[in-house]
């Protein structure tokens, strides 16, 4: 009886986690683009790494406005994934390559809040709301020579994020990287 109760509790917890996992955006279908790209950025940060980053930046950037803004933004995040490719010439990727990602963003839970499409450019922003708050958002930015996908899990204020550029984010005191950037 006790064992059955334990199994029921574990199953209940797993079921509660399931919708969030299903709604988490997986960036797939872009394999091979890095090889064609002039420059590519591949960043995946889970909650543990974000906590470490937040802690480090809280110490390193506590005296700067930018550092505080970033620490504040990171505090509500659970995961960040960025795939960005810059090509020498146009036509290195197809819009169909984005279909796997866009299909996930058409599922219930996600809603498109900004969409701008022209002949060869797409800018789309999607958000996922939970209890009236932003629980995740995704950006697809496709230009002839550039493709960027950003997926962020967690609560974030898009206006605060938007202001980061004005603050000059790169100037925060992050020590130089010793190894090669991916």
């Amino acid at each position, binding site marked *: 009886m006790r064992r059955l109760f334990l199994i029921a509790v574990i199953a209940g917890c797993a079921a509660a986690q399931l919708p969030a996992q299903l709604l988490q955006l997986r960036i797939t279908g872009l394999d091979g683009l890095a090889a064609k790209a002039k420059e590519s950025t591949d960043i995946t940060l889970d909650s543990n*790494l974000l906590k470490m980053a937040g802690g480090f930046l809280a110490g390193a950037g506590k005296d700067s406005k930018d550092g505080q803004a970033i620490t504040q933004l990171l505090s509500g995040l659970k995961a960040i994934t960025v795939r960005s490719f810059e090509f020498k010439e146009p036509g290195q990727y197809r819009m169909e390559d984005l279909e796997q990602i866009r299909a996930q963003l058409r599922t219930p839970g996600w809603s498109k809040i900004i969409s701008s499409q022209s002949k060869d450019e797409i800018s789309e922003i999607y958000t996922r709301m939970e209890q009236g708050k932003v629980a995740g958002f995704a950006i697809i930015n496709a230009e002839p020579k550039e493709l960027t996908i950003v997926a962020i899990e967690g609560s974030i204020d898009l206006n605060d994020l938007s202001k980061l550029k004005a603050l000059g984010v790169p100037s925060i005191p*992050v020590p130089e990287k010793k190894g090669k950037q991916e």
Partner: protein
Amino acid sequence: MNLEDELRAALRREDPSPDFARRVAARAQSSTKPARGIPWMMWAAAIAALLVIGFSAAYEYQQIKAERASRDAVIALRIAADKLNIARERVVRRETPANTREN
């Protein structure tokens, strides 16, 4: 008895007792060798030194990992902010009539 006879009597050859060889062998076996191992304080010092080195290496590794994560987080947020602003600008540009933009 003169001195010479006394000496001869004292130094005369005598056979050992019947169990002499067994007793010598038994004593040789039971004798313990002096301890020549490393003293326990040396062991303790070596273990303490290893622990200090281990913890320092682990701390250094965590610091490097945190630095790298913070750098990646900053880059990721910068890219996200940049693309968010581009999308917003495009929408604003599209919704603003051309003549209004010129003014």
